[in-house]
């Protein structure tokens, strides 16, 4: 009997590890307000640049130490997960909704609409991606939400192309012809008949889109064009602690490791999903 993709995913060690890791991060992000943490933006006077508790001079009051302003690093890292995962999620949802709809309609209707959408994709792909995001943020003004729009715009071409390609592959198949014979309208055909059969590549793309989005948001934060102080965003935290790199290296290690772990997990999950949907390799 053929195994379901889910069963195959559960046999993939990498995918299981990534699912566990992501669950931990999601739980931490959701439960952050319930955890016994110092408020992430609170400045503790006289407690600047405290070492982590496993170093001499550290205390359990700030388990991972404090930053240059005297804010609790552990708390900022955990609240940072809310930002990275939350905005990563919004980025993927927006990309799927906008990119998926454009790709679906372009592939289904064809004609001038298809050509227009493809031309838009060409133009977006001809623009240097991070640079495009930077210019968009420069136009809109630096903020977390504007960074989200910029990163979504950059992600669109991938989603449009993937959806369009799989719609083209499905459109002429017999079950679609049959549903037309039964009188299904364009909307019903697109969303009820064709779309469910195009989900596999879209889900893989969504998982990879998560990691791209989180990386790009963090990069914008690092350049000072994303989250603004005192928001505990990982990329922005790295930029803030860069100046203290030589004396307070713990401030630089952890935010980067957090970004790496989340991005790595989504890439692993994406690889696992691809293998699960397409088990030929």
């Amino acid at each position, binding site marked *: 009997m053929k195994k379901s993709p889910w069963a195959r995913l559960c046999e993939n060690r990498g995918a299981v590890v990534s699912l566990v890791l992501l669950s931990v991060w999601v739980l931490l992000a959701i439960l952050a307000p319930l955890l016994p943490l110092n408020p992430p933006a609170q400045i503790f006077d006289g407690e600047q640049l405290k070492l982590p508790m496993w170093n001499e001079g550290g205390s359990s009051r700030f388990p991972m130490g404090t930053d240059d302003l005297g804010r609790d690093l552990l708390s900022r890292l955990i609240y940072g997960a809310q930002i990275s995962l939350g905005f990563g999620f919004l980025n993927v949802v927006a990309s799927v909704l906008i990119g998926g709809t454009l790709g679906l309609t372009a592939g289904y209707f064809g004609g001038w609409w298809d050509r227009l959408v493809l031309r838009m994709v060409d*133009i977006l792909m*001809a623009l240097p991606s991070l*640079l495009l995001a*930077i210019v968009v943020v420069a136009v809109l003004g630096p903020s977390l939400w504007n960074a989200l729009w910029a990163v979504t715009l950059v992600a669109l071409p991938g989603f449009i192309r993937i959806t369009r390609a799989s719609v083209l592959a499905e459109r002429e198949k017999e079950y679609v012809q049959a549903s037309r014979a039964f009188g299904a309208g364009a909307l019903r055909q697109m969303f009820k008949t064709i779309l469910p059969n195009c989900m596999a590549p879209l889900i893989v793309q969504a998982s990879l889109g998560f*990691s791209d989005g989180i*990386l790009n948001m963090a990069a914008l934060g690092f*350049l000072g064009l994303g989250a603004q102080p005192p928001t505990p965003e990982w990329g922005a935290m790295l930029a803030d602690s860069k100046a203290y790199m030589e004396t307070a*290296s713990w401030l*630089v290690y952890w935010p980067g490791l957090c970004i790496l772990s989340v*991005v790595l997990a989504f890439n692993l999950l994406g690889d696992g999903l691809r293998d699960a949907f397409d088990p030929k390799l």
Partner: protein
Amino acid sequence: MLSFLLRRLLHAGPTLLGVSLVAFMLIRLVPGDPVLLMLGERGGSPEAVAQLRHNLGLDQPLYMQYWHFIANAATGDFGNSVVSNRPVWEEFTDRFPATLELSLVALLWAVLLGVPIGVIAALKRRRWMDYVLMSVSLVGYSMPIFWWGLMLILLFSVSLGWTPVSGRISAAFDLEPWSGFYLLDTWVRGLGWAGFWAAVNHMILPALVLGTIPFAAIARMTRSSLLEVMREDYVRTAKAKGLSFFQIVFVHALRNALIPVVTVIGLMLGMLLTGAVLTETLFSWPGVGRWMVASVLARDYPVLQSGVLLLSVLIVAMNVLVDLLYTWLNPRLRGNV
């Protein structure tokens, strides 16, 4: 082949027109008066404001502004920077060699290491070697490179004191650029080993950082492509003929497996040339990426508008080249073009 090239170029035309329109409109979407914003930090009398507005052509209707933008760009006039008052084209050609040199070195190590690692992983499929190599490339692929750069600076520059942290060459060397490639210019200008070594030293960390993601992508691509090819009929035929494993892999399979890898490398170069923004910012590398970020921060709109267009021309040209290379490498496609 020629007709294929022409078709691709004809297709690129409207795309670049679209890009120019996007670059043009983006700058004009900035809330507020760009002239006042540009003069913001520098201040200016009403006459100066009017003068700048006139110089930038902002006192004309939008469609005329756009027409001037593309008509001038077509003749190689990309306007002047507001900050330096120099032609954008000059500023671009000053910086581009720095980016090109860095990208080429980054891509060189990425290919030289990525392809063999992909091949080894594919040949040792599902063995511990494969898992180790693929884990390394997955980590590389997921790397926030701005953090990776900081870690390398912390280790090699701060702790070990081996490499400098910024620039292209030590201030002690007064290098008048010849080609703009410092690895070459240090020889041309007679700075000898000491100068060359200084340039190499400045290049190591940025190139390592910039090449990390391409390296990982190339290793992953090589592995999956080779695995796919190894299942092809002609490989089975080669096995049946009793060819040695070495001959099968390196003479028959790898050649075909590398076709998609070559196209990925080509696309990577286009991305590196324009996407070195983070690396260049981190290492104060005087290339185009850092220039664009500086222009964003300084609100140097003529530079942004023309810079985005110039970089897009590069990407599109690179994509056309990759397409040509792909059809040339893949005989099965030659009949169709």
